[in-house]
C-alpha cells in the first residue's frame, strides 16, 4: 500500500477496489480515480484489493473510514458492508440492508413499485425454471405477456454485462443464454423507449440532492460494455437535454428511489424517460463507477463540485456516524 499525505487530524481512508467480480477491471480503475481525488483533496488515502489479507490488515491497522469502489457482488451485495459493520469500521455509502435491496434488481424493483415509483414491468426467472418447464413454453409466455422489444439482463450485476435488447423473437433464446452466463437468474422487462439518463444522488449533510442528470447517447445505440468504457463511443450530455419540468420530475423520482431503497451518502439511479416525459427507474447502484467514463464523476463536475472534496465530506460523515 502506498500512503498519501494528509494533515494530522485528517481521517485515514482505505479505498477498496478490485475483488473477484466480472467488474474487477472497472473497479480497479474506479479505485485509482477515488484515491487520486481523495489525495488531491488532502486526504491520507490508500487503496487495496479485497482478498484474504484484508481482514488481518483491518484488524492490525484499522482505517478511520473505508470508501468502497468495488463493483459487482464483492462490493454491492451488502456482504462487505456487513463485514465492515462487524469490524466496527465506518464506510461511505448505503448500509448492508440497503445495498442488499438495491443490488438484486428484482428486489429493488419490488421496493420501488411498492413506493409508487415507476419501473418497467418485469419477471425474474432462474435458469432452472426453463429447464424444468421447457424453455420454449416459458419464452412464449414471456413474449405474449410483454411483446417486443424486451430487455434481458442478469438479476444481479452491472456494466451492461449479459444484457441484451431483444427485438426479434428468434433472438430471445440466445439472449437468455448470454444472460445466464453472468448470473443464474434473469430479469426480463418490456423495453421502454426513450432517453437514457443517470441521476447521481449525493448527501453531504443537508439531505440527499440530485446532481444534474447525465444523458447517455451510445454511438451504436447500445450502451454495452465497450460503449461504457471506451472514450469516444458514447456522447454524454450533462445536464440531460430534458424539458425543465421533466428534468425536475426525473430528479425527484431519483431522490424518491434513493430514499425508498434506504440508500445514503451517494448513489446512482439509472432511468429511462419515455417520450411522454415519464421517468422509469431501471436500477440503482450503491457503489457507482468512478472511472474516467463513469457517470457520477461527470455529474459532480457538472454541479460545480470537486470529486475529492465531495468524497472527503462523505468520509467525514461516515467517521462521525461511526
Amino acid at each position, binding site marked *: 500500500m502506498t500512503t498519501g499525505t494528509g494533515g494530522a487530524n485528517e481521517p485515514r481512508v482505505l479505498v477498496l477496489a478490485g475483488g473477484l467480480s466480472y467488474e474487477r477491471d472497472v473497479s480497479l480503475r474506479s479505485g485509482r480515480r477515488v484515491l487520486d481525488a481523495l489525495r488531491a483533496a488532502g486526504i491520507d488515502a490508500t487503496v487495496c484489493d479485497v482478498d484474504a489479507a484484508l481482514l488481518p490488515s483491518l484488524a492490525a491497522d484499522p482505517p478511520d473510514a473505508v470508501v468502497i469502489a468495488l463493483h459487482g457482488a464483492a462490493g454491492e451485495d451488502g456482504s462487505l458492508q456487513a463485514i465492515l459493520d462487524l469490524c466496527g469500521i465506518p464506510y461511505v455509502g448505503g448500509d448492508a440492508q440497503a445495498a442488499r435491496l438495491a443490488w438484486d434488481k428484482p428486489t429493488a424493483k419490488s421496493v420501488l413499485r411498492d413506493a409508487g415509483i415507476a419501473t418497467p414491468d418485469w419477471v425474474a426467472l432462474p435458469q432452472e425454471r426453463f429447464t424444468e418447464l421447457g424453455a420454449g413454453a416459458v419464452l412464449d409466455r414471456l413474449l405474449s405477456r410483454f411483446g417486443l422489444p424486451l430487455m434481458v439482463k442478469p438479476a444481479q450485476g452491472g456494466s451492461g454485462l449479459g444484457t441484451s435488447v431483444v427485438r426479434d423473437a428468434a433472438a430471445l433464446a440466445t439472449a437468455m*443464454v448470454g444472460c445466464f452466463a453472468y448470473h443464474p437468474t434473469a430479469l426480463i422487462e418490456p423495453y421502454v423507449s426513450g432517453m437514457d439518463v443517470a441521476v447521481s444522488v449525493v448527501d453531504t449533510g443537508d439531505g440527499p440532492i440530485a446532481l444534474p442528470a447525465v444523458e447517455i447517447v451510445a454511438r451504436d445505440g447500445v450502451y454495452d460494455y*465497450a460503449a461504457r468504457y471506451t472514450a469516444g463511443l458514447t456522447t454524454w450530455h450533462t445536464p440531460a437535454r430534458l424539458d425543465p419540468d421533466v428534468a425536475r420530475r426525473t430528479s425527484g423520482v431519483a431522490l424518491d428511489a434513493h430514499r425508498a431503497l434506504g440508500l445514503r451518502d451517494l448513489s446512482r439511479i439509472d432511468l429511462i424517460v419515455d417520450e411522454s416525459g415519464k421517468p422509469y427507474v431501471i436500477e440503482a447502484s450503491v457503489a457507482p463507477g468512478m472511472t*474516467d467514463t463513469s457517470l457520477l464523476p461527470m455529474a459532480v463536475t457538472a454541479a460545480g463540485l470537486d470529486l475529492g472534496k465531495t468524497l472527503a465530506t462523505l468520509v467525514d460523515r461516515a467517521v462521525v456516524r461511526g
Partner: protein
Amino acid sequence: MTTGTTLDDYTDRYARRMRGMTASEIRALFSVANRPEVVSLAGGSPYVAALPLDAVGAMLGALGSTHGATTLQYGIGQGDPTLRERICDVMTLSGIDVTNGASPDDVVVTVGGQQAIDLTSRVFLDPGDVVLAEGPSYVGALGVFRAAEADVVHVPMDDEGLIPAALSEAIAAVTKAGKRAKFLYTVPAHQNPAGVTLPDGRRDEILSICQAAGLLIVEDDPYGLLGFDGETVPAFRSRTRDGVIYVSTFSKTFAPGLRVGWILAPHAVREKLVIASEAQILCPSAFAQATVAAYFETMPWQQQLKTFREVYRERRDVALAALHDLMPAGTRWTIPSGGFYIWLTLPDGLHSKDMLPRAIAERVAYVPGTGFYADGTGSAHLRLCYSFPPPDRVREGVRRLAAVIEQEFALRSAFGVSAGASRPGAVTWTSGNAGPRSSRTADAPGPETP
C-alpha cells in the same frame, strides 16, 4: 446549458488501423484470472520458478556492478555480437548452423518474439497484402498483421499441423482473387494454440509448395526446443538458406521478463530489419541482452532445457489425464508433443467466448478460440495452457472446466441454442474423446479411442 462530450477529443485523428479497438468484456474478465482463487489455464507463461533463481540473481547483480558501464549503456541496433553468437549456438539444436548458412551476422536481436514478428511485417507487408497463417494461429501475430492492415487467410490444420494440400488450395485461391500473399506465417513446432507439430515429411512438402509459389515462410519457433518426445524436428530454416525468415525468443526457454528474441534472415532482409528496428526502438536493451548472453555462457542451459521439458511434460500428462477422466462426451482435444498448449473442441453447439463468464464464476480461465482466428471464427474451440499452474491445480482447473461445459451444454440444450458447428472446412481434430488417439504420443495418458 447542456454540453455533450465523448470524453475523447482525438476521435477524428486516430489512424485507420485503430478503428474497432474498444474496451472488451473478455479483457475485463481476464483481469479476474490473475487472482490466486482462479486456476488460469489462459496465459502462456513459462514456469520461471524452475530456473536457478539464486544463481540468476547473482549473475544479474554482477552484470550491474561489474559490467554496468556497458550493460547500462545504449547498444547497437542489430544487437550485441556476443549474444548473436550464443543465439547461433541455440539454433544448432534446431538444425540451423553454418552448414546451412546461419551466421551471427544475419541475426537481429529483438524485444521478444513479438517485435520480431512486427519487424518482419513492417518490412514485408503493405495494407491489403495477404498473409497465410495456420487456422488457428498465434493471437499476438494476428494482432500484428491486423495493425499492418493485412488480410489473413487461415489454412486448415490437423493433428500434424498445417495441411499441405490446403496450403496449395489457399495459395491458388489468393492468386485467383488477384491478391498477393506475401508470406506464410507458421509456428511449426508445438504450435500455439494447437500444440501440434509438423513432422519432417510435411515440412519438406510445405517448403516445396512455398518455393514453387515464391512464397516466403516466416517460421516462428518459440517452442521448438520444448518437445517431449526426443529429437527436435529440424526447422524449416535448416532445410534452406533462402526463403525463410526464422523468428524465435528466449521467453519460453529462459525468461519472458527479459524480452529478448531474434530473427535470422537472409542478408539483404537483415539489412532492412536492422534499419526498421533502429527506427522503432533504436536498440534492444543492453542489460537484457547481456543477461541472456551470460546465462548461455555461464550456466548449464541445456540441463535447464531438460528441466523445463520435464516440468511441462508432467503438467501436460496431468492435463491430458484430467481431460480424459472428466470431460463430457463430445469434447475433443489435441495431444501436444511439446510446448504449453492443448486445443480443445467443445461439444457441438457450445461457444467458448459466451461460456467464459460462467468459467470465471467457477474460477477457471481459458482463452476462447475466437482469438486465434483473424475473422473471429473458432468459437467452438478454446486454448488451455498447462505450463504455469502446479499439476494439482491443472487437474483442478480441468475439473472446474468440465463442470462449466456440462452446465453450458445443459443450458443451451434447454434453449435449443447452438453456436454452430466448427469452422467450415477446417480441421477435424482426431484426438480426444471423439477420435483415435494420436500415434505420435503413445506414451501420453491421453483419451482412448471410443
